[in-house]
């Protein structure tokens, strides 16, 4: 008996995706996760452009995680030209990341994922019965947006985030106000953690996921070194050696593996790796949860997102304090182009992001390579879908579809 399951347009995900599953005589025959998003040729449209055009162009890869693309490309440019920024510029970038994560994670948790767990087709539909829950989501998102607007200039695609730093920096009063807002949003984030801990998460993946994240002494979104869950360490320059990318015959996202295996990146990989080094206030919240980290269950990615929001909001309060104490400070250092290649990595909200550029002596880009989280996640999502189908062969088509969508959404592809 042959059974086919097709989801032609995945909803509540950022890209354009579709899934085809074929089951024959109770055996899984085929799983295809297809991203049908049109290609946008970023590795090609950056060519021959001056280095200072690059962050602007590549930030358009993603409207939700534009800060990640900007900062990874900036890290690569500064790497290529040997630019060292000041501690304050570094702090401002980290504060920007706090804003990005609050915005992106709140959007994902409240607007894309939550409707699944509360049994609604959308957050807007949920708003009628649970106005306060939806408003909380809007509020956390708004705090993130305000930080990005203040430092970057706009909520989406702010142009003030540049190689060498920032053309202008926030005033002391503005920093105080942001610190205040972050401080006030912390209880709402804690409530989010507890809300997402309260749901039941069935496990659809078989073994502990093979995972990859940035390696550092404590929870870190930026860095130069990576670690696999089997303990293997490598540097950002070696990224392309470890990651094998294949062009897929049915998806416009490339198919990536490490050591021949699909791998996990993103919030769950990070929280699992850093759970012992989180701030004590975060750890205290974690102690009271029914879910324990490290966790092997992919669906706990949602809870991991909430945990990351808490850790980063706490960090944001500290960053504001340091910047207020350092006031006044310069926002920019000089950037002198020279020929060479630079590498930049960053943990984007949905997982690791890699940028590499080569420049000529005038700072014109001659080649680029960008590896996005979605491309790296395609393989592991397909693997999980296989396990899901194996485990729920008796499920009705509608039910199976729903589960598959929930699983894919947990990756926020």
């Amino acid at each position, binding site marked *: 008996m042959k059974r086919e399951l097709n989801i032609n*347009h995945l*909803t*509540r*995900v*950022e890209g*354009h995706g579709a899934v085809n599953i074929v089951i024959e005589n109770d055996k899984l025959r085929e799983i295809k996760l*297809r991203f*049908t*998003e*049109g*290609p*946008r*040729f*970023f*590795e*090609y*449209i950056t*060519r*021959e*452009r*001056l280095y200072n*055009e690059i962050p*602007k*162009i590549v930030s*358009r890869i*993603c*409207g*939700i995680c*534009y800060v990640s693309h900007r900062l990874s490309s900036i890290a690569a440019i500064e790497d290529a030209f040997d630019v060292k920024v000041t501690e304050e510029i570094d702090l401002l970038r980290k504060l920007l990341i706090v804003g990005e994560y609050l915005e992106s994670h709140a*959007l994902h948790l409240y*607007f*894309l994922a939550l409707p699944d767990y509360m049994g609604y*087709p*959308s*957050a*807007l*539909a949920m*708003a009628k019965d649970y106005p306060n829950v939806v408003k909380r989501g*809007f509020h956390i*998102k*708004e705090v993130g*947006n305000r930080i990005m*607007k203040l430092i970057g*200039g*706009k*909520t*989406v*695609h702010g*142009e*003030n985030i*540049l190689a060498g730093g*920032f*053309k*202008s920096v926030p005033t002391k009063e503005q920093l105080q106000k942001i610190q205040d807002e972050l401080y006030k949003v912390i209880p709402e984030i804690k409530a989010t953690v507890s809300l997402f801990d309260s749901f039941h998460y069935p496990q659809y993946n078989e073994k502990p996921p093979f995972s990859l994240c940035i390696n550092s002494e404590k929870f870190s979104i930026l860095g130069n070194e990576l670690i696999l869950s089997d303990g293997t360490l490598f540097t950002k320059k070696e990224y392309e050696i470890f990651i094998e990318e294949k*062009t*897929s*015959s*049915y*998806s*416009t996202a490339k198919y990536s593996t490490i050591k021949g295996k699909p791998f996990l990146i993103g919030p769950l990989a990070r929280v699992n790796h850093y759970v012992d080094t989180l701030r004590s206030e975060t750890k205290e919240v974690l102690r009271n949860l029914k879910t324990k980290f490290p966790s092997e269950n992919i669906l706990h990615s949602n809870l991991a997102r909430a945990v990351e929001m808490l850790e980063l909001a706490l960090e944001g309060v500290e960053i504001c304090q340091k910047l207020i104490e350092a006031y006044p400070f310069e926002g920019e250092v000089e950037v002198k182009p020279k020929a060479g290649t630079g590498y930049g990595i960053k943990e984007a909200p949905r997982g690791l992001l890699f940028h590499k550029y080569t420049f000529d002596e005038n700072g014109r880009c001659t080649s680029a390579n960008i590896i996005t989280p979605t491309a790296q996640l395609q393989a592991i999502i397909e693997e999980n879908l296989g396990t899901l189908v194996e485990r729920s062969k008796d499920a009705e088509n509608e039910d199976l579809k729903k589960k598959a969508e929930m699983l894919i959404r947990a990756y926020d592809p």
Partner: protein
Amino acid sequence: MVKIGIMGLTGCSGCQCEILNCEDAIYKLLGRVEFSYFPLAQDNNSFEEFDVLFVEGSVTTDLDEEKVKKGREISKILVAVGSCACYGGVQSQRNDEVSLEEMIKGVYGTTELPVKISKPRAVSEVVKVDYELPGCPLDKRQFVYAVAFLLNGVKPFFPKIPVCHECKLSETECLTLKGIPCQGPISFSGCGAPCTSQGVGCQGCRGDCDFPNYNEMVSILERNGLKREDAFKFIKVFRGKQAQDRISKLFRGDLDEKGA
């Protein structure tokens, strides 16, 4: 209830995010409009008929083309939002420089792709567009105004005056005079000039204002330190065909010299 659709073609979803960022306005709108199609935000989507359909992204794949043509057929009003939908966006900036095959091969190493691809085009190159709300991303206030206008039977109208006008209104010091490359003099205002007020030159993400003087713009950019070819590239980032046509017409001699 007025039926609204929000559709994404090839783009970054940034405009749809900005629409979701119109938090209070969306709450208020919910009493009068129904989002009958908004796949980024909801499951229950119907693609049957719309009073207003907002389209984000450029037309790059055969799927995009099919979707937007169908969307046009079933919509009373079609609004292109963001610079990808209005002009082709960043992905179209080298349409005049390299062939499609070269771009596909350069990125994928092969031309065998699962979808049929064309050079990125603006929505208006494929179907009739009633209104355009450009910007990268679109300006969310303009989105709310446009919806409010349309709900009340008024044609949305935003004058195509240059960004310089907004710098004057916000008393922002002129960056062109300070020697910073800025596209304000040839760019369509309406954004409130957030970039220039932070000391970053206008990047022209909203496209051309009425009667843009490219000749003068290019010579100012040259005076402010850009080589002529880099000035062209700087202007071309967001404007798609609009800028490519003007540049090829006005500067044909320069382009021939370079063999471009």
